[in-house]
């Protein structure tokens, strides 16, 4: 069938090219439209306890945790002067008329929202809508609010969210602009001719275009995250180039050996095509694992990546042979590199492979130690999420965030909203008054249990107003709650109590997104009361759910991916040891990139050079995304290398010579493909958004480690040491394993 596909494409080469041309033409408009239909965010889902708690907060206490934040300032006017307060009143008047806005809080409601030193006031508009909808609504608010003589900066969840998306997109564009010319030069160096260098760009580009168009169509039926676009583009370019590079170079090699164009295409299709197919299947397995996550962002990255890999695979197996059949010898036109450079005798890979073959232990031990050392920092990885400091300070939302942090201590500490619902909430009589002696006692118990948890610096609630008060004093205090004159206490009574429900704000000096805070969330959730139920809301709670969901399944998914990969490589190479070696080395490459991420982005090393602020944590989705992408890519390289070794071994039956030949024949191609990907990925280090930087650097380091330490040194050294064991397959296994038919 594989052979038939090759023959079919060669016979109908023009029809195939025209068909692809039409497909690309049809896909192009959808490619450009895809971003408009993808949704930002998508990190949580409805079943999360934090999402349930958010609903309880909204429904029972009419509170929202999502706000548009305004920072008003004036160089001369004091914040409580009538002209300042008048200007604010005028700016925000009518805001509560919007049904999307629940309430507006100013410094007149809460004096701590005013900074007299910098004449700055923090005003918040609480939203009744979800984050995704709020980004659009933000534009309406921005146009509506006229600050008059005051300076206004708008920040808060929706603005930060919008800017993170915009800045990420801008970063990716800029990265592509920088990477494209450099990658082109790298392609020219690898292929040596202009025409051949054009092919990967055409096939890779075509694959990405069609893949993204597929994402567009899928986004019409299911929710897809905008993050999918970035990852899909990056992965599509990398994999498309890999496939076409491997295919084209093999075709050139066959041509040089004197075969006809058709025979060369068929031979390339047989060996390279089959390796590409297996490589794609392996990558698909890795990326399909993302679909198993109950998190829209990862699921859509998985679906998108599958689409783009399928498109790249089909392009490599149809468009590529069709183009090569048409081009024939002309693929070597417009030479930009001397012919001798293509001759493997002059390649660095020959002496390198010979050197590794002569002293495998001498190579294996130190390189393995280096690899393990690179991976060691990963053991201190702290997963979390990032705050607005990942944004460049040229953006308005970041500037506003900085003012809120510096002037009002915003986001430096954690506030966890905990809603306590009385057990009798269904009983209208019992739920009528939270200020009865019995209900005050229950709330008092909960409030003080929360105060005693590790990491809690204080609790705000109707029963935590005063450290010297007990239930009796509170009962007296709340006989006429409206008569309380204390502004802060009055606000707590207005906002944090409703029939049957009491809100506790748990304060902690811990950073909202750090692991210790997730432990606090877990501790709060572990508190049980027979008199009622606790619902833990807020950012820290949502992050806890996201990370628990991601990493609750991650080990299982990792295990499934590794096992399935092992089995598919077992089928391809009919060896017990080689797939095991491949899987272990791939994991080590990934761990090395994790270690680098921790060393650089968590600990802040090279922060000056790379122009970023240390995150203190690794963004929780990064390790999973990198696992999926790197596993797919490095498996490409492994399969390309092993397929050449295996091919030589089938021909010669000599292990050592086969390993050397495989390394020599695949070395340039793998290095070329990897160099291009490293260039593309490393260009994202120029990004403004730190997470994009981290993805780029993590990917670049992983691929670099993979093609240098792993593929060039460790893999051949292990294969040399293993000798005939490389090809050992028990008879019983040989009998039950299905045969992969080869085109001869």
């Amino acid at each position, binding site marked *: 069938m594989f052979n038939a596909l090759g023959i079919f494409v060669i016979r109908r080469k023009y029809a195939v090219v025209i068909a692809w041309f039409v497909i690309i033409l049809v896909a192009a408009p959808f490619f450009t439209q895809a971003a408009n239909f993808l949704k930002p965010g998508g990190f949580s889902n409805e079943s999360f306890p934090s999402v349930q708690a958010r609903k309880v907060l909204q429904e029972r206490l009419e509170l929202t945790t999502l706000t548009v934040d305004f920072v008003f300032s004036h160089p001369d006017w004091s914040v409580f002067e009538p002209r300042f307060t008048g200007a604010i009143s005028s700016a925000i008047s009518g805001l509560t008329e919007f049904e999307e806005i629940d309430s507006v809080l100013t410094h007149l409601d809460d004096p701590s929202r*005013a900074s007299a030193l910098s004449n700055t006031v923090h005003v918040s508009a609480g939203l009744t809508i979800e984050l995704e909808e709020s980004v659009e609504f933000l534009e309406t608010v921005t146009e509506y609010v006229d600050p008059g003589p005051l300076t206004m900066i708008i920040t808060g969840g929706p603005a930060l969210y919008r800017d993170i998306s915009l800045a990420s997109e801008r970063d990716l564009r800029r990265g592509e602009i920088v990477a494209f010319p450099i990658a082109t030069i790298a392609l020219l160096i690898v292929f040596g001719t202009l025409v051949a260098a054009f092919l990967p760009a055409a096939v890779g580009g075509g694959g990405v275009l069609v893949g993204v168009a597929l994402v567009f169509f899928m986004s019409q039926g299911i929710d897809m995250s905008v993050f999918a676009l970035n990852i899909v583009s990056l992965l599509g370019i990398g994999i498309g180039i890999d496939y076409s590079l491997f295919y084209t170079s093999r075709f050139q090699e066959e041509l040089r050996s004197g075969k006809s164009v058709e025979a060369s295409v068929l031979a390339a299709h047989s060996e390279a095509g089959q390796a590409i197919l297996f490589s794609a299947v392996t990558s698909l397995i890795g990326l399909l694992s993302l679909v198993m996550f109950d998190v829209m962002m990862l699921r859509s990255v998985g679906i998108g990546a599958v689409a783009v890999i399928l498109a790249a695979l089909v392009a490599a197996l149809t468009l590529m042979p069709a183009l090569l059949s048409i081009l024939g010898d002309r693929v070597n036109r417009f030479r930009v590199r001397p012919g001798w450079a293509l001759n493997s005798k002059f390649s660095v890979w020959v002496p390198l492979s010979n050197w590794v073959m002569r002293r495998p232990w001498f190579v294996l031990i130190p390189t393995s130690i280096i690899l393990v050392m690179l991976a060691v920092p990963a053991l201190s990885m702290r997963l979390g999420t990032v705050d607005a400091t990942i944004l460049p300070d040229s953006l308005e939302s970041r500037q506003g965030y900085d003012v809120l942090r510096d002037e009002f201590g915003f986001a430096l500490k954690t506030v966890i909203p905990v809603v306590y619902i009385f057990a009798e909430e269904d009983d209208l009589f019992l739920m009528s008054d939270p200020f009865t002696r019995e209900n005050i006692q229950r709330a008092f118990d909960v409030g003080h249990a929360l105060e005693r948890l590790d990491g809690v610096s204080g609790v705000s609630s109707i029963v935590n107003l005063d450290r010297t008060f007990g239930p009796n*004093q509170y009962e007296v205090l709340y006989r*006429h709650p409206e*008569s309380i004159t204390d502004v802060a206490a009055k606000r707590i009574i207005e906002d944090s109590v409703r029939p049957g429900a009491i809100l506790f704000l748990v304060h902690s000096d811990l950073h909202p997104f750090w692991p210790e805070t997730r432990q606090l969330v877990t501790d709060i959730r*572990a*508190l049980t*009361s027979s008199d009622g139920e606790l619902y833990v809301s807020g950012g820290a709670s949502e992050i806890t759910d996201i990370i628990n969901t991601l990493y609750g399944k991650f080990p299982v998914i990792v295990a499934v991916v590794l096992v399935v990969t092992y089995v598919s490589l077992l089928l391809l190479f009919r060896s017990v040891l080689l797939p095991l070696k491949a899987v272990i080395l791939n994991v080590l490459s990934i761990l090395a990139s994790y270690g680098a991420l921790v060393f650089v982005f968590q600990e802040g090393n090279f922060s000056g050079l790379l122009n970023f602020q240390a995150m203190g944590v690794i963004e929780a989705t990064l390790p999973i995304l990198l696992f999926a992408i790197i596993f797919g890519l490095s498996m490409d390289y492994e399969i390309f290398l092993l397929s050449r070794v295996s091919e030589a071994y089938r021909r010669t039956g000599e292990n050592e010579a086969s390993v050397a030949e495989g390394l020599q024949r695949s070395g340039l191609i793998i290095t070329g493909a990897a160099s291009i990907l490293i260039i593309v990925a490393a260009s994202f280090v120029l990004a403004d958004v730190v997470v994009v930087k981290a993805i780029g650097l993590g990917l670049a380091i992983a691929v670099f480690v993979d093609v240098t330490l792993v593929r060039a040194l460790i893999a051949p050294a292990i294969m040399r040491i293993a000798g005939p064991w490389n090809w050992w397959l028990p008879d019983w296994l040989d009998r039950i394993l299905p045969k992969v038919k080869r085109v001869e």
Partner: protein
Amino acid sequence: MSLLICLVLLTGCVNISETRPVPSDAVADPTPLPREVVIAVDQYPHGSRLEWWYHNGHLSTELGREFGFHFVVFKAQDGINEPNVVAQLGILDVDSSTHYEASRADTGLLFSDAGVLDIGIADWLYTIGDNPGDHEFSAKNDTVSLSLDLTTSTAPMLHNEIGWMPTEVGSTYYYSWPRQIANGELVVGGESFEVSGTAWFDHQWGEFFVLGKPSGWQWFAIQLDNGGSLMVTEVRGITGDVIDAYGTYMAPDGVVTHLSYGADSIDVKALDNWVSPSTGGVYPSGWELTVGSIGINLVLTPLLLNQEVLGSLPKASTYWEGKVNVEGQLKGENVFGDAYVELSGYVDPDPVIWREQ
């Protein structure tokens, strides 16, 4: 593979806490025990939930033009956030019967060196001097401005003998400097005056709440011409009934007498009412004050009916704080004097919206 899984387990997942039942703290309320008040230390801010430094006084120019003032700095602290600080200024121009008020709010406290505390409240400044009983402040808005130096001429007056008293909802430390000498500059109606006179100072702090209507108080700070000083407070409880009255009298020779409701026969009788056009609050206006044990019977008459402080910044409670004339008898002798009266809890509070629904 196992290394990766270990890594993931180590880093990704939080420890699962065992469930823990909420313990019941069903015990009697903690009983706060007072400590000794040390003025040199206690004149400065405390970490307590509520605290205020308050001055009132009776000022005049060289030409005899009379003014009254009150200036107060409130600090509220919830133990989590920076303290909120609100300052209010009230000025009565007796000649023109005009009452002015201004306010500022801020967060946090600014400390300076050498034991002197500067509290900046936006563009206002209040200084607690090194020497107990010495203060300075400057406060202004577009229409009124007052800067005063205040130095004490007496010993402090610790109320309830030890300077501490329980309330219905908490307890408060409380002392006064009943006679401070005031000198400074006043600007009203575009005119600037050098002023001097006598002032009264109160300092309260503690873990307590100030409740509005129906709770509240009538507070009298009286400076008699004979050199005596008298503070009397009548307290209404959560039901609106008078539940207590207490006071402190400092005789001209400095001897301090603590006065209690029943034992000392304190009686406060309102002679009239005044209805606020701004808030609709019905305030007593004009009083007959009797303290049987020390033979005092005084009639206090407001110099202006409307000395209501709306306290609009931020949305704070409304009260009446006014300069009054004093005349009457002390142990059978005629006495005169000046006083400030504070009336709290006479305006209907805003309802708690969700309880109304």
